[in-house]
């Protein structure tokens, strides 16, 4: 299998600067620009100099085997993990220099970050709505409760919701501030197939109707192929492949995205990286 680096990664930041690359112009239209970010814990490199962009209305899938660096990348993009080197720009705003401003129109949902179970659905949404400075918060909460079929749980403690209902609540929180950058770490992991399809539709509608970009991680290749405009294959902290999930498998001699995923994971193992 031929493995190539994506173009942005091939141009390190220093080279781009030498070439007089105008970062602001380069990033125009991008809701997220990740530039050569690395994260190392001592000798262990979790993310190894990756770069990518997410444009408006674009859903980008971040794929890779366990331990590939997907969640580390998302955490660095959320500002809860500092890169060892490299930069993250959200709507052109440097996350390291202006964290609060950069995160104003960013949000996320992840199965491993449920909202506090000792607060009700409404209370959780109200608190996060205040933190994000959402205008007409009461109306926005009502709309999202309705949108995610959570109206009946409005006064229910979040901790007693089923995992699927908690996932929907996490997504409602993630859309509270109408984010321009939405980060979703396995958003449908605990949903049944019918609910998954419905949620995929809502997220796709969200990305396509407004001016938002979505970074989506999933191990469900069917889902990725259906939802994502572009995928990045991450392995051992590096982007190995990048392209359209519908055409990428054939370009690399595989029938399906799942087969390509397995081939990438195997190659990683055979090369001794795993």
């Amino acid at each position, binding site marked *: 299998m031929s493995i190539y680096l994506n173009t942005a990664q091939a141009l390190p930041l220093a080279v781009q600067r030498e070439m007089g690359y105008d970062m602001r112009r380069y990033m125009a239209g991008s809701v997220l620009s990740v530039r050569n970010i690395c994260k190392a814990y001592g000798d262990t490199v979790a993310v190894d100099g990756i770069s990518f962009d997410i444009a408006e209305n674009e859903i980008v899938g971040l794929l890779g085997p366990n331990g590939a660096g997907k969640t580390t990348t998302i955490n660095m993009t959320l500002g*809860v993990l500092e890169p060892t080197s490299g930069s993250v720009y959200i709507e052109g705003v440097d996350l390291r220099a202006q964290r609060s401003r950069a995160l104003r129109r960013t949000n996320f949902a992840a199965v491993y970050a449920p*909202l506090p179970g000792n607060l009700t659905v409404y209370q959780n949404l109200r608190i996060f709505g205040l933190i994000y400075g959402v205008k007409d918060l009461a109306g926005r909460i009502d709309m999202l409760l309705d949108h995610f079929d959570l109206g009946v749980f409005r006064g229910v403690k979040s901790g007693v919701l089923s995992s699927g209902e908690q996932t929907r609540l996490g997504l409602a929180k993630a859309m509270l501030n109408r984010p321009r950058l939405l980060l979703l770490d396995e958003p449908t992991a605990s949903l049944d197939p019918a609910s998954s399809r419905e949620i995929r539709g809502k997220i796709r509608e969200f990305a396509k109707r407004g001016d938002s970009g979505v970074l989506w991680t999933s191990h469900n290749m069917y889902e990725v192929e259906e939802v994502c405009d572009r995928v990045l294959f991450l392995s051992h902290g590096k982007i190995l492949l990048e392209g359209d999930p519908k055409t990428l498998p054939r370009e690399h001699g595989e029938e399906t995205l799942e087969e390509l995923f397995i081939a990438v994971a195997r190659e990683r193992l055979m090369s001794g990286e795993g």
Partner: protein
Amino acid sequence: MHSSRVAAVVLRQFYLIRGSLSRVLPLFVWVAIDMVLWGFITKYLNAVAASGINFVPMLLGAVLLWDFLVRVMQGVTMAFFEDVWSRNFLNIFATPLTISEYLGGLVISSIATSSVGLIVMIVLATSLFGLSVFSSLMLIPFLLLLFLFGIALGICGSAVVLRFGPASEWFIWPVPALIAPFAAVFYPLSTLPQWMRYISLLLPPSYVFENLRAIVSGGAASESALLWGGCLAALYVLLACRFFVLTYRRAVRTGLIARYSAETVS
């Protein structure tokens, strides 16, 4: 600083307290028990002591002030622990909320919760045991100084738990008990050996309790000593905030914020 973000931190604490009897009762039950217990002890001491000293203001007043300081500290740490217990760090710190806004919310929460305890203590101490020293205007600087020091302890304790993980909250609960002997809550500083007095000089509460005893004994409060104690307490608040910020930055650098749980204690 955005007021709505600070309000969100306070509102979270309000929602939690409003909906939970186990959070409401500790706001005043333990301090009320302390007032009753120490109230009767002081009454008994007044009856048996031949010295003529009125123990009510000296001991009960000291207990009241000390409990206030402890409540202020716990007001901050409890609000912080709610995020620890509900594993909410990733949600809360992946937002535009700044550290100053977060700490501001914790402090305002503490003002509200410690005020409940203070009011209950004053009502019980004055109505049941005739405590009257707090009609003095000196109550305000006493409370202010203890409040500042309690905030400093609370923020510092929160930083320790952020650094060492949830299990380290057991380092925080005994902190007031460790400080109390040096703060000379119940006895004059002159009772302490010299080495302990050096430490007392660095503790703002010791200035409050020395002056409380001076007033009760018919003397005057030393305004310069209280001012110095106040400056020390304000300095400790600044240092505690700095410590929390540095601990937070370290947690972001090491990834602790993103994977904070009981297993991350190092």
